[in-house]
């Protein structure tokens, strides 16, 4: 069951990537610079309206065509980080817009720089507001790691397919595979709900 380990490994790396893309993108999306807003909007709208599977093909096969050989894990993780990150941008943008304007005014009255206002006042509150939707997005990332089986045998779905090709008994194995994902999703959603409860202490 090495595959299960890789599935979790890709998911954890992916979560870090998605949060970085989401936070940077959402900051650009709500910034004063028109150029940053246009770039972030174009990125978010294009990635979230196109299938992650095609992006996985793109990062793996298409880049190979121009001499860039990415290992399947890297190509798959990148594609999912961009797709899931694009969705995170929209989620965090809504969260940032939901933070009361008085918060920013108060922060700037206290002499905080725009960066300080964002990182220590706006983002923590936006993060709390966005957490339920963000959590669903990260769970969807976990499930979408199964798409990487299309370009190689690394994570658990790819390995299951290989075993099925040899043993030709698929029904039980797919049920086991389904159970693996269900357990992982259950653990993840429990953790997210726990985080929501913890953070709710600070909120209104």
């Amino acid at each position, binding site marked *: 069951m090495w595959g299960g380990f890789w599935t979790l490994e890709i998911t954890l790396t992916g979560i870090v990537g998605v949060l970085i893309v989401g936070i940077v993108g959402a900051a650009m999306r709500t910034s004063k610079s028109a150029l940053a807003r246009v770039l972030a909007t174009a990125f978010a*709208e*294009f990635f*979230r*309206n*196109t*299938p*992650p*599977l*095609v*992006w996985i*093909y*793109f990062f793996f*096969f*298409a880049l*190979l*065509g*121009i001499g860039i050989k990415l290992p399947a894990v890297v190509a798959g993780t990148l594609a999912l980080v961009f797709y899931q990150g694009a969705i995170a941008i929209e989620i965090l943008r809504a969260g940032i817009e939901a933070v009361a304007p008085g918060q920013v005014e108060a922060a700037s009255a206290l002499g905080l720089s725009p960066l300080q206002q964002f990182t220590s006042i706006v983002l923590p509150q936006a993060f709390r507001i966005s957490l339920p939707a963000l959590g669903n997005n990260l769970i969807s990332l976990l*499930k*979408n*790691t*199964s*798409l990487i*089986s*299309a370009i190689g045998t690394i994570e658990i*779905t790819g390995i299951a*397919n290989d075993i*099925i090709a040899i043993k030709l*008994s*698929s*029904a039980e194995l*797919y*049920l086991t*595979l*389904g159970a693996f*994902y*269900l357990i992982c*999703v*259950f653990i993840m959603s429990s953790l997210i709900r726990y985080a929501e409860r913890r953070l709710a202490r600070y909120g209104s």
Partner: protein
Amino acid sequence: MNANYLAAIREVLVQGLPVTLEVSIAAILIAIGGGVVLGVLRTLHNRALDALIIAYVELLRGIPLLVLMFFVFFGLPQLGFHFAEVPSAIIALGLWGAANGAEIVRGAILSISAGQAQAGAALGLSWFQVMVTVILPQAVRRMIPPFMSLFVATVESSSLAALIGVKDIVEIVRLRVENDPALWIPLLLSILLIYFFINYPVSIASQKLEKRLA
């Protein structure tokens, strides 16, 4: 490359696009129908029924759609149910969509104030009449934006059908580039644009509607 690209993109548009649309539209219709039935049944507050529907929804939303599709196409024949590629894809996408649709419909019905149902009952309408003539017509407006988002997700997810051999736009690209790897970039960019032009207007309209309802 140009002649090859043109021949390939023609095949994508003439043969692949109708398949992608057929799978997506059939699946979203199942999702809407199944979602309305399951969502309405949830409002009966029958314990056994609720437990069954919750189990169905959590199960189908807790496993990757790809695993479900593999199960329908490769696993079910072992249990005596054989479906061809396209029906398998539609079944898997439809079942998955119905689970998401059930939550959409339940949420929309819950958002209608309880006074509406009480007023309907006070007028002597049966439960069924209240649901069909009072609750659902009001709830439909709130269902439209999330169902539009579900349509976008369904169109995106229809690409997974390529992995069980459905000749949708993704699979046609993959078959075409086997002879000519130089076509990967232009063809993949082309189908990304096709998906984008189908999905973008729907997702923008969904956001606009949602804002107006809020």
